């Protein structure tokens, strides 16, 4: 039976791994290749690696680093950051990466997803949306941001997610900016709304602070990807760096609640 996925999310900044809070205060947590080796040992379900410099600096993805990550990774790998063309996506997939994530470039031009899907197949195309709750007294709903949450696109998150799915995304990853690094739990309301409108697999990132937060998400949504950053790189209230991941038996327990045949 298929089970929900538990996915460590690693942020690359200036060649190292960092963890942020609400997309600010990047704290160095280690070397990317070393982290991949540890997650191999721990049999992580997948890895999501996002380069948070590439888009804001307007540079290409770091292909050398991607090749090294892919060579080391014994599990499916999704890379995102700075991807703006189907050629880049193809080059990344050719290096041994399963999925390519696109955010800013796809929001500016959803047909990019169609082009990438035509080159590498829809199953390898992931759209990442950084989402914040609308601010203001009577505001409701969610807006989409890009460039490390510096640019507000004002799009409604749900309709944009649907649009990107229809354009060719084989998976949608939602990153809750307000919950990033806070470890207070996922935005279950947002996750539920998205699950209702999407047909492709959905992965939720932002807010996980304990294994109970996964359970909450799986009970509510069933088949879903649960991604987390802080939880898998920090230990204790002083945020000491320690890479961790649920042991296979623990993972089995966590995911069997919502297993769908």
């Amino acid at each position, binding site marked *: 039976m*298929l089970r929900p996925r538990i996915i460590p999310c690693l942020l690359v900044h200036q060649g190292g791994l960092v963890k942020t809070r609400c997309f600010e205060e990047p704290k160095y947590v280690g070397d990317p290749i070393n982290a991949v080796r540890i997650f191999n040992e721990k049999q992580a379900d997948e890895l999501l690696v996002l380069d948070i410099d590439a888009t804001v600096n307007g540079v290409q993805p770091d292909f050398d680093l991607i090749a090294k990550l892919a060579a080391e990774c014994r599990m499916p790998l999704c890379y995102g950051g700075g991807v703006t063309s189907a050629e880049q996506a193809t080059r990344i997939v050719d290096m041994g990466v399963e999925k390519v994530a696109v955010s800013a470039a796809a929001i500016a031009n959803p047909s990019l997803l169609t082009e990438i899907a035509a080159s*590498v197949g829809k199953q390898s195309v992931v759209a990442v949306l950084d989402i914040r709750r609308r601010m203001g007294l009577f505001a409701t709903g969610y807006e989409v941001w890009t460039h490390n949450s510096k640019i507000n696109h004002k799009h409604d998150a749900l309709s944009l997610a649907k649009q990107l799915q229809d354009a060719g995304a084989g998976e949608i990853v939602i990153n809750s900016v307000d919950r990033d690094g806070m470890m207070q739990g996922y935005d279950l309301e947002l996750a539920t709304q998205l699950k209702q409108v999407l047909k492709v*697999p959905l992965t939720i990132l932002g807010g996980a602070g304990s294994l109970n937060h996964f359970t909450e998400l799986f009970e509510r949504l069933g088949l879903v990807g649960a991604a987390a950053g802080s939880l898998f790189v920090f230990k204790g209230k002083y945020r000491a760096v320690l890479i961790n991941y649920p042991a296979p038996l623990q993972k089995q327990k966590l995911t069997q609640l919502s297993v769908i045949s």
Partner: protein
Amino acid sequence: MNCVVDYGVGNIQAFLNMFKRIGVKAVRAHEPAMLLDAKRLILPGVGHFDHAMQKLNDSGLRSSLEQLVLEECIPILGVCVGMQMLARSSDEGILPGLNWIPGHVRAFEGNDQSAALPMPHMGWNSLHPRPTVNPLYKALNNMPEFYFLHSYFFDACDNDDVAATATYGFEFDAAVSRGHIHGVQFHPEKSHHWGEQLIKNFVEL
């Protein structure tokens, strides 16, 4: 030599990475001459069925592969769309498949039993190898999990060709074997120790 067939489709490097990790020599074969001393073949594939078949037909490798597989009985492992290409035909296209294992590739979409589930079928699913003795599944009898990522599945004509099944809304053929010809819908190259075991078993065939 273990050859990963490079006809322009599929994640060749992921297999080379895997072979390197388990300490087994393998090469990327992109022209017929490179297949001359092939002892085992991996046929990868991603994306659309017709695109993959067209690329294979245009690659100049097809007749060499047919010689190796059908005449010399060299073991071959088709992976993902590479497995689907072993079939006779596919819902995803109009081109004929290799027809090395009789079967038709069907879409999950339109099937009532999987209609409520996310599509593609993505993630870790338990694999149920058939209890028959198949050396490809040696030491993989204790509920192994493999990574799947697909929207179409192989439906074998002959039940004896089904090597393993998995369930997504309903039970489907997740792996087929006929003699030295094998296909797996899942990705052994990205399935932790289970995938390594399967590839190790394959190189011992």
